[in-house]
């Protein structure tokens, strides 16, 4: 069977159905048995203008990154698509509207800017949409129909995906979308003289078990519900809003409560309050909101109250770039706030691990009575994958509070010094379990205590929990070069890990001895594993999506050796192609 590995981009203006078309394409390809990874970029403004791009990678093999350049660009909007041409491969395929309603003014046509080598297929998108549905709005479906014909995709399967997408809409909506698709399909089949070599003809993917087509935000919400979340407080912010949106519908049905607060300070305050009350609670935010929460994060650590914050990173600082991806909250997540403030930080490395990270976060927060931050980013939050349905968390992960024994309640010390640093926690209302709780430094009973010895003892207690957390941390993902020492070891984190892994696989095919390392657990960090890995690599490369190399700086202190950095702040996800190029240079 021939391999399929194709990136299709649809570029249009907000409100032109660009994202919907991308979603339908992804769902159709998933239903056909292909691996998909899709990622949309859109303007920060709500609607009506601005450039939207639906980026979908389709592969018959496992996918680890979205692919830097597109093989196919469907231009629904010429002006926006001109700037997207730089993301089209040299020998890519452009689908453009050959009969726009009005002639383009000079330099406003996408075809006017294509480089030689690009194959251009002109499809009368507007005219066919008008004919099919009486409106130009169906241009997105005409475009899908055209590529379905040109690349010999399953027409009936595609039609079914469109019908499914609009199943809850009126019949006229379904019909106009399907008819537009069919117009594009028939027209392209009849008029396009195919000169590219790409085809799905004769490719049949093996039947697969049912897949979830889902993005990181949806998985976080699903995981939270499965992990017994009972309280969510939040203030909407891109790119985390979707989590709150889903939970607002689902959480009440799971016996929980959702509270939309006036700001992020109130949200984290409510979460800490709920955690104090003994139920699992979390909030989701992005950089600006996370910055506001720092005072309460300190309280969570000091008062040893479980709290979970999902921080989906975007371009920063401040309001920054709301709809672009970045990994620049690493320092803030690990060290933001005041004082010696040990907290757990997890960073999922792909869509699937968003589920694991959320379940683990709620568990660790409850068991270790502390703050847990989960670092997503715009890409992880929004990129859509087709994944196996995750197994629900085991019972042991759902009830993690270590409650005091009856005898311990006789002289209850809420902050009792223990070997693990975990003090048995009485939920308010527990008979005999009355205690003080404050943001002030305190003694074992919770009473304010500012002595140097007391402060040291309690600080050590809070840090002691790290050892326990590490024993429960997911094992780092290490792909070692077998046999000899690797020439290059790539250390990555978060959403860049997939691209790093793919780059290492590609590098090996080129004969480069390469290994990769990534850890979902960032704090506490599996330092020994990283040192062992580093010792087996001649050179180390750290790719990440921030300017200052925040993780690289962190890693340098652990491995105590110089390393190469690869930093981007383009707003786009990390590309395996860029890492590979850097590896070739090293």
């Amino acid at each position: 069977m021939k391999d399929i590995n194709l990136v299709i981009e649809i570029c249009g203006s907000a409100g032109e159905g660009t994202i919907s078309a991308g979603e339908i394409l992804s769902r159709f390809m998933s239903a056909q048995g292909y691996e998909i990874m899709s990622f949309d970029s859109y303007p920060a403004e709500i609607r009506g203008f601005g450039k939207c791009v639906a980026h979908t990678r389709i592969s018959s093999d496992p996918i680890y990154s979205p692919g830097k350049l597109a093989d196919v660009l469907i231009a629904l909007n010429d002006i926006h698509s001109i700037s997207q041409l730089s993301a089209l491969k040299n020998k890519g395929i452009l689908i453009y509207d050959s009969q726009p309603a009005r002639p383009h003014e000079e330099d406003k046509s996408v075809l006017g800017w294509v480089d030689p080598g690009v194959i251009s297929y002109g499809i009368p998108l507007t005219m066919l949409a008008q004919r099919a549905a009486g409106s130009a709005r169906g241009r997105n479906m005409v475009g899908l129909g055209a590529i379905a014909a040109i690349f010999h995709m399953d027409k009936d399967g595609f039609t079914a995906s469109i019908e499914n997408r609009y199943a809850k809409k009126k019949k006229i909506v379904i019909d106009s979308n399907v008819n537009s698709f069919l117009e594009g399909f028939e027209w392209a089949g009849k008029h396009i003289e195919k000169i590219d070599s790409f085809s799905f003809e004769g490719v049949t993917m093996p039947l697969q078990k049912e897949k979830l087509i889902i993005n990181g935000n949806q998985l976080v919400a699903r995981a939270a519900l499965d992990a017994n979340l009972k309280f969510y407080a939040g203030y909407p912010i891109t790119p985390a809003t979707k989590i709150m949106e889903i939970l607002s519908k689902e959480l009440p049905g799971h016996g929980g409560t959702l509270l939309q607060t006036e700001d992020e300070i109130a949200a984290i305050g409510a979460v800490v309050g709920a955690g104090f009350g003994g139920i699992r609670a979390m909030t989701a935010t992005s950089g600006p909101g996370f910055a506001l929460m720092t005072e309460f994060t300190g309280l969570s650590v000091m008062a040893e109250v479980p709290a979970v914050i999902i921080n989906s990173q975007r371009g920063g600082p401040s309001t920054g770039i709301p709809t672009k991806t970045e990994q620049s909250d690493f320092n803030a997540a690990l060290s933001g706030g005041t004082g010696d403030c040990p907290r757990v930080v997890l960073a999922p490395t792909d869509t699937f691990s968003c589920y694991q990270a959320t379940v683990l976060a709620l568990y660790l927060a409850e068991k270790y009575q502390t703050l847990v931050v989960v670092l997503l980013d715009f890409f992880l939050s929004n990129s859509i994958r087709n994944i196996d349905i995750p197994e629900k968390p085991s019972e042991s992960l759902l009830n993690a509070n270590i409650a005091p024994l009856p005898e311990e309640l006789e002289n209850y010390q809420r902050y009792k010094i223990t070997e693990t640093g975990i003090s048995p926690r009485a939920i308010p209302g527990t008979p005999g379990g009355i205690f003080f709780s404050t943001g002030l430094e305190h003694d074992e009973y919770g009473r304010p205590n500012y002595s140097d010895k007391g402060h040291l003892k309690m600080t050590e207690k809070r840090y002691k929990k790290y050892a326990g957390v590490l024993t429960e941390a997911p094992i780092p993902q290490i792909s070692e070069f077998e046999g000899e020492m690797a020439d290059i070891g790539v250390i990555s984190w978060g959403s860049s890990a997939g691209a790093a892994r793919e780059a290492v696989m590609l590098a090996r095919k080129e004969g480069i001895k390469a290994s990769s390392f990534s850890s979902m657990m960032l704090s506490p960090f599996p330092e020994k594993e990283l040192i062992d890995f580093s010792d087996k690599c001649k050179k180390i490369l750290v790719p990440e999506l921030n300017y200052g190399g925040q993780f690289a700086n962190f890693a340098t202190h652990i491995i105590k050796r110089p390393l190469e950095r690869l930093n981007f702040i383009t707003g786009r996800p990390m590309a395996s192609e860029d890492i590979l190029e850097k590896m070739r240079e090293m």
Partner: protein
Amino acid sequence: MPSYDHYVILGNGPAGNNAASFLRENDKDAKITIISDENIPFYYKPGLTRYITGDLSASELIVESLPNYREKNIRLRLGQIVDKIDPEQKIVFLRHKEKVHYTKLVIASGSRARVLPSMRGYAQCLKHITTYNEVLEFKDQIQAANDFFIFGGDLVGFKFIKMLGKMGKKVTLLIYPNAFWPFILTHEMQATIVSNLEKRGSEIIVGDDIHTIIEKENAYMVKTVKGMEKKVDMVFSFNGLIPTVEFAKGSGLDIDHGILVNETMQTNLPDIYACGSCAQIYNPVINSYTTSIGWPNAVVQGEVTAMNLLGDHKVIESVGRKYFDLEGVRIKTTWWEDIEESSSI
């Protein structure tokens, strides 16, 4: 004073490119755009036959690479077809529905293979060597094929026959005396050519014509009017070139075979010039218009056009090779002198 002219050049051959380069050298501020329907940077067309044999690689054909255009700040629009021009509004309309505004227009759209009216029904079966894309399409096929049927002649055709001979291919040529259109071979010239080609092993048919061409099982059955039948792998037509000027029809430009220009390469409409093989240039000696062929002529015409666009009054002169060796016959092909006098040497 900076110039804000927008020079739009239709055609990416030697005439158009030379005009563009000269304009850029002498007008740093102007906007310059080259539009070509071919999807390849400026390449050396006479090298196509050597490209087929493998003596030249695709990259060696390229005369001017894309970065050079960027460096010169010349906007290169490749693979874009001109539908029509509107001299009143000074707009070039592109087929993909884009308007390009010019202040001065240079038409250097070149020429394409002439298909005889009687052969239009067989156009699908005929191959030509006029563009890179055509050649790219059947380059491998030529390597694999053994039997070739060629009708017509012309300079490129004879070059091709020579090349096939070197490759050990079997060639049948149905010679047309008027294959050099608009030049016509005399009987004496034709006899010399036939004799020389036969000595090289080619089969030559004279005084006959194509009756039918039938495509059958990856081969072609060619039947002549006099009843000869030949089964061959490929059929080529070499019957001269005709200027590519369809887009200019109806624009008000004076057009005969090509676009008529005066000795300074200017058309009958203001701010529109034409040069290269798409133009018919006024020759005061014979008081008529003639078409030129050949790379060197096109280069000079492009440069003269640019000079005149910049305000000069340069009159075109003949350059380049005046004579082509054609199987032992020297043929004068330059347009600038009396055709009848120079038709046999």
